[in-house]
């Protein structure tokens, strides 16, 4: 994923994402790639999707070392079950499904031990943020922490939908299939998720 920056009007830097297609054309593997020496075909899959899987795991779990373990485990599961992947789904969607199941299991066991309060979704229905207002960030280095804080304050479903829709290769239909609901339901919930995220993000400034 590449996100070149370009200076917008009034010296405000606007970051505009560009579309890429790693699934169709994975970047060339370096000869030093340890995975390519063991399994070149699987190394190409890893190369094309590892950033997306790692980022999803990182923001769902909120912990760097847990995300590292999860990414390793997700790709190992994918390797073991590669012959079961029938190609009727996009490989990114398949990897995301493994990631969601894995992270969900981890979070459930962690929450069972550590969390006793339930978040009230009705609070987020009436969030005062507006979807249209732009987000202004002074320090990019603080962005990760602020995003994590904001995502953590959202209901799990909103968090997941925002993370999935941020992947430009994922269509609403694919997100709907992954989250087991209709594409219309995804659109409706995303609207509320954006609003709730906007309100939460402003609080982290």
């Amino acid at each position, binding site marked *: *994923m*590449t*996100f070149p*920056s370009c200076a*917008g009007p*009034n*010296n*405000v*830097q*606007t*970051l*505009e*994402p560009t579309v890429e297609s790693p699934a169709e054309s994975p970047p060339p593997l370096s000869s030093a*790639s*340890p*995975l390519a*020496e*063991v*399994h070149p075909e*699987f190394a190409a899959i*890893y190369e094309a999707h*590892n*950033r*997306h899987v*790692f*980022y999803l795991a*990182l*923001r769902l779990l909120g912990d760097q070392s847990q995300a*590292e373990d999860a*990414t*390793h485990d997700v*790709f*190992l599961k994918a*390797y*073991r079950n590669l*012959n079961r992947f029938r190609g009727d789904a996009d490989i990114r969607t398949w990897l995301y499904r493994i990631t969601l199941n894995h992270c969900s299991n981890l979070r459930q066991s962690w929450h069972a031990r550590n969390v006793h309060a339930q978040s009230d979704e009705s609070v987020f229905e009436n969030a005062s943020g507006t*979807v249209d207002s*732009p*987000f*202004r*960030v*002074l*320090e*990019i280095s603080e*962005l*990760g922490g602020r*995003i994590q804080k904001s995502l953590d304050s959202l209901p799990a479903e909103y968090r997941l939908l*925002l*993370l999935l*829709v*941020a992947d*430009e290769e994922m269509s609403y239909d694919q997100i709907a299939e992954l989250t087991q609901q209709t594409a219309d339901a995804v659109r409706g919930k995303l609207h509320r*998720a*954006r609003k709730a*995220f*906007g309100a939460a*993000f402003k609080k982290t400034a």
Partner: protein
Amino acid sequence: MNPQSQRLRSDSAQSNLSSTKSASLVHEFQSAEDLVRADAAATQVPAVIEQRLAQSISQEPSAAPKPWWKRLLGT
């Protein structure tokens, strides 16, 4: 030149400089998705994951070939 106007010009130049300085640090994102995408792009995947994965896969038993009847039936 009038010293008063010179000081005003200097103040104005100083103010322009500081506003440019602070404005150049502001990054603007149009949506929550754009924000998340920028964060994803800035997030590096630790190389150690690939090394661990390569090690794990090298220790996996190689998959047994499918029997002929399974290949024939396409199951």
